Structures are given as structure tokens and as C-alpha cells.
């Protein structure tokens, strides 16, 4: 995977770190830079100046408040944490190639770490009905517009003399998708009403792009999160929804496993009732399915029909897991077991 010409391309960037690479290997947007001074990960992003400032602020802030399980950023020799080159921004990190400790899955580690970050940054916001109203109406409107787009696609598909396999698959699950969208909207309304009733709203620093690929392990098995480029102050539910939407794709996923992961998270921050409604709402909305329809409509040349159908079916199946998991979240906890000592006669 070594590309000698990449030494030239990345030269102006690596010069700022005094790195003269012996080999560069590409892993998507991350380049593994092997040099006499060690092995590093060079990440390419499209962040603008404002986003860069926020991103570096987030990384430093986490360190200041005592969270050290993030992949650190190395400053350039001039003390900058990013390098602007052309229309791209680069930053350098250590190359972590360790593997997870035995006894804990990647998902368990991730949910535990994100729970810690949320716990350290959780803030009860001053309740502002305008902010909550705005969030609610904005999301509701966006979802309704998306629903309309999908309905239009369903109508177009129905009018086709010969439906494609993708259109056929889509139409056979259309009713179910719409039901999930309605459920998402209902739960969003529950959250909205509860926020107004309780006059409370919590926010935390959200990673914004949680994924299995954004968790690495150092050589001694210590977990480290990376890629805080999309970090944002928002309801902690934002990260949870992204996390669970991805986790259901894993082969070992069961509804009970989801429950266990959520309780791992809740050891750091127990969710409020309205936050549970919001989590169910976020997860239930079938946006991943709608996205695969968008891909089919706009980039049809990119994949074959069978690949499109495969992608759609995978997402439909994931939504089924989500629905089961949402049922579990909304199930009231069983009553606490009776204290066995309660009926003991004390003499």
C-alpha cells in the first residue's frame, strides 16, 4: 500500500511536523506515516477555520475536565494543531494498533466511554420554551418533508409498468416504514410535551459520529476515542441514537444485548423519561431507509440493482431490530423485588 508519490503530496504537511516518511499507507482518509521518528496517523478533513477551532477546543476541553481516553493530537513544530493545505485540513495523531482487552466487546467499551464523556459534560440547560419549540418544529417539518418525498417515490414506483427489484422491495415495506415514521413523530411530540411540563432540558458534549472505527486501542489495550470533528453540544440522546442505529447491524445484536448496553450507559447517566421518548423517536424514524432510496434515485449508476436491494433489505432488517429495542426501552422496569427481610419478625 505504499505510494512513493504520496511523499511528495503530503510533504508540505509533514514538513510542519519534521516528519520525513519512509512509507505512507492509505486507510481511507487516514494515512499511516512510517518514519524514523515513529509511526503516525495523518487525518485529512474538510473542516473550515471555525470548525477547526471548535474541534481543537473540544479535544483540549476534554483533557482539561479529566477525560483522557481520546487519541491525542500532535502539534506541529510551530504549535498548531492542524495544517491547512489546499482546501483540506490535516491533523496528526499517534498510530494505535492495539486490540481490545479480553472480556469486553467494542460496543461495551464505546458506550461506556461515551457515558463518561456525557457525564463529565452534562449540563441542565436553562429551560427556554422557544429553543424547545424551534427544535421540535424544525425536526417535525424536516421529517414530514422527507415522508412526502418518499410517498412521491412510492407513487412513481407504482406507476411503473415494470417495477425494478428495488422499487418492488421498497413498496412491499412502504406501509411499515410510514408506520415507523408516524411512531417517531408521536414520540417526538411526547418529548416535546414532557419538556414543557417538566421545564427541563439537558445537554452534553456529543461525539457526533460514533462508530466502531472511531474507537482505537493503545498497545496496552487502553481504549481511545477519535474523530471529534462533528462534536456538538446537544442532547446526549443524539450520540445514543447514532450508536444504537449502527450497533443493530452487528451480527451478535439482540434486543437483550441492546438493553444491556443501555444499562451500561445509564450507570453514568440514567436517562430521563422524556429522553427515552426522544431516543425512541430518533431511532424509529426510518431515515437510513430513506437515504438508501436517495442513493438509488440519484446515483443509480454506482451500484447494481442487486446491491441496491441488498442495502435496502439490510436497513429494513435493522429497523426491525430497532423497533424491538424501542419496545424494550419503553417497557416500564419491573417492580423492585420485595425486601426478603421485610417479613422477618424481629425479636
Amino acid at each position, binding site marked *: 500500500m505504499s505510494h512513493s508519490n504520496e511523499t*511528495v503530496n503530503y*510533504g*508540505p*504537511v509533514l*514538513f*510542519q511536523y*519534521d516528519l520525513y516518511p519512509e512509507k505512507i499507507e492509505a486507510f481511507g482518509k487516514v494515512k499511516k506515516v512510517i518514519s524514523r521518528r515513529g509511526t503516525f496517523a495523518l487525518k485529512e478533513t474538510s473542516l473550515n477555520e471555525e470548525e477547526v477551532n471548535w474541534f481543537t477546543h473540544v479535544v483540549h476541553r476534554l483533557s482539561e475536565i479529566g477525560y483522557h481516553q481520546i487519541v491525542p493530537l500532535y*502539534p506541529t*513544530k*510551530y*504549535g498548531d494543531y492542524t*495544517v*491547512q*493545505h489546499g482546501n483540506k485540513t490535516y491533523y496528526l495523531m499517534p498510530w494505535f494498533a492495539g486490540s481490545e482487552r479480553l472480556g469486553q466487546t467494542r460496543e461495551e467499551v464505546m458506550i461506556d466511554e461515551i457515558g463518561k464523556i456525557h457525564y463529565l459534560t452534562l449540563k441542565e440547560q436553562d429551560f427556554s420554551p422557544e429553543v424547545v419549540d424551534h427544535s421540535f418544529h424544525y425536526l417535525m417539518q424536516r421529517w414530514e418533508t422527507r415522508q412526502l418525498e418518499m410517498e412521491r417515490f412510492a407513487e412513481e414506483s407504482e406507476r411503473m409498468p415494470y417495477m425494478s427489484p428495488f422499487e418492488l422491495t421498497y413498496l412491499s415495506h412502504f406501509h411499515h416504514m410510514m408506520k415507523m415514521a408516524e411512531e417517531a413523530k408521536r414520540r417526538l411530540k411526547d418529548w416535546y410535551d414532557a419538556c414543557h411540563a417538566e421545564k427541563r432540558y439537558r445537554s452534553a458534549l456529543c461525539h457526533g459520529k460514533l462508530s466502531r472505527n472511531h474507537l482505537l486501542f493503545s498497545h496496552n489495550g487502553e481504549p481511545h476515542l477519535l474523530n471529534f470533528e462533528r462534536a456538538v453540544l446537544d442532547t446526549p440522546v443524539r450520540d445514543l441514537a447514532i450508536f444504537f442505529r449502527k450497533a443493530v447491524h452487528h451480527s451478535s445484536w439482540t434486543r437483550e444485548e441492546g438493553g444491556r448496553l443501555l444499562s451500561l450507559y445509564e450507570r453514568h447517566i440514567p436517562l430521563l423519561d422524556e429522553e427515552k421518548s426522544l431516543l425512541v423517536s430518533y431511532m424509529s424514524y426510518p431515515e437510513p431507509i430513506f437515504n438508501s432510496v436517495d442513493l438509488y434515485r440519484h446515483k443509480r449508476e454506482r451500484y447494481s440493482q442487486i446491491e441496491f436491494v441488498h442495502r435496502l433489505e439490510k436497513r429494513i432488517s435493522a429497523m426491525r431490530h430497532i423497533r424491538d429495542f424501542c419496545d424494550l426501552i419503553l417497557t416500564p422496569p419491573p417492580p423492585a423485588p420485595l425486601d426478603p427481610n421485610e417479613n422477618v419478625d424481629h425479636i
Partner: protein
Amino acid sequence: MTILQEIKKHYELQTVTWKEKETLVDTDCGVKRIRIWSDLHLLNWHVRWRDEVGKNSLAVADRMIRTVDGACWVDLEGRYLTLHDYVEGRHERGGHEKRWGLLLGNMLQAGLDLQKEFGPITHADRYSFDACLAAIHKLSKDYNELVSVRNSLPEANKRLNLAMELKQASSQVPLPLLDSDTHMSNGAQIFNILFYRGSNGYPEEGYRPLRKFLTEWLKECGPYSLRKLLTCINEHFSLEREQGYLLLAEILTPWELQDCVDQLKNTELSHIVACVESFEQDWDFNRILLHCFTDWMDDKRKRVAL
């Protein structure tokens, strides 16, 4: 503790040896230049403009390498040591106007942004036409060789008056500060970067360093490349309005006359002949520079009008 030990400690370097005593050190991160400063305010100016210019990665100045604590210098009990990259060789000029334009545009912008803060430490040459006039009249009585210098006086006077008028019209407009030692020869190339070596001198307020630079460019690369360079500078720092007029005023000012008079302090005949030759050449080049710049400005104006 010796300077080498200080560098090793503060910059966390494994090996540091002299490559050139008091100037260059060989380290495990390559050859580095050291500079010693005694004026903290001057040092701050050099840190700031270099940092501003170094915000991109195509045309950068030799910024101060940070210590392990993130500081820009090492305090040596009243003196300050800074460490810089050292790049040998030279960067191509003609054909690379875009890169040089980026560098000069960023230098001008930084100089303008920092003008208020560092204005008090500037150094500026004052032009005294009367002193030039008196010196040339006095010398030309004894040396016939100075006839071309004497003949240039009416035009020099006209140019000076025009320059004064332009400066007067833009008297409220702040002038950028520039490194007084701004030359093409300071540009080197590493990877694909134009690496510019700044000086450690006091900054100059105004466009004289740029005028010198443009003259150098004109001499080496010709008028076509110069116009391209001006267009490229203009993409990063506008030379079309007041700042352009102030640059024009600087080009109009007959500095070559004063430079010549300064040289004539040595009255050896061969020296005087060489001075006059050099003056004639500078005078002609400055005419071409003036012509190029006014042409370029007119062209810009026409484009706006169209």
C-alpha cells in the same frame, strides 16, 4: 548552560551540534537556524508576522519553532533564543508568481493587521530631496561624470511632488509594516513549499521594501511576469485602491537618487563612474516598474468599468 544544551533541553532534541557557530545547528530533526534577540518587542513583531504568513502551507515564513512548553523562544537571561527551519537553495521566481503572490499578499495583510500594535518600533528612511540636490550640485562642479544624475533632477522633482500629493490624498490610510530585508533571494524551496527566510531587523512602515522587491523581480523576470505577480498579490491583498496608490507613491519617489548620493561619499573616480552607471540602470528600471504598475492599475480600472 551552553546554547546547545539550552536548545537540546527546551526543544526536546536528541542531538544538537554546531553546523555553523552561533548560526546553524545540526539536530535529529534536521538543520536549524538560531537567532538571538535582545529587544522583546521586536521579537514579538517577528513572531506575529511570521505566524500570520504561515497560515497556509504553500508559501510560509521561517516561523519560530515552539519549545516543549509551546513557547516561541527560550529566555537566556535578558536575551532570547529562537529556533527556525533552515532550507538551502533558492525558489524559482518566473513561472511561480502565484506562490510568490501568496507570500507577498499575506505579508502585506499581516503588516497591515499588525500596524497599530508594532507601528512604534518601525524604522524608516526619510527622503530629503533638498539634501540630494545640494550634494549633487556641489559634486557635479568637480565631476563631469555626474551629468546624467544632474539631468535627472527636474524629473525626480516632478516625481517626488506627485508622490507627495498621492501620499497626502491617502494620509488617513494606514500603511503596512514590512520586513525591511524583503528580497527574492530569501525564498528557498522544500517539498513544494516556498520557504521564506525573514530577517531579525526592525520593520519598515510603507511600501519601500515591496518596491525594492518588485524592482528585483522586474530585473530578473521581466515586465510580463511582474504584471502576473501583481495580479497574484492582488488576489490576497488589494492593490487596486488606496493601498495601490500608496505603492504608486513609493514607486514614484526617486529613492535611486538618494541611494546614489549616499554612494558618492567615496569620491574616487572609478567609484563615481560605477555609481553613475548603477544609478542610470536603476533609474531606467524604475521607469519600467512605474510604467508596468500604472499599466496594471489602468487595466484593473478598465475591467471594473467594463
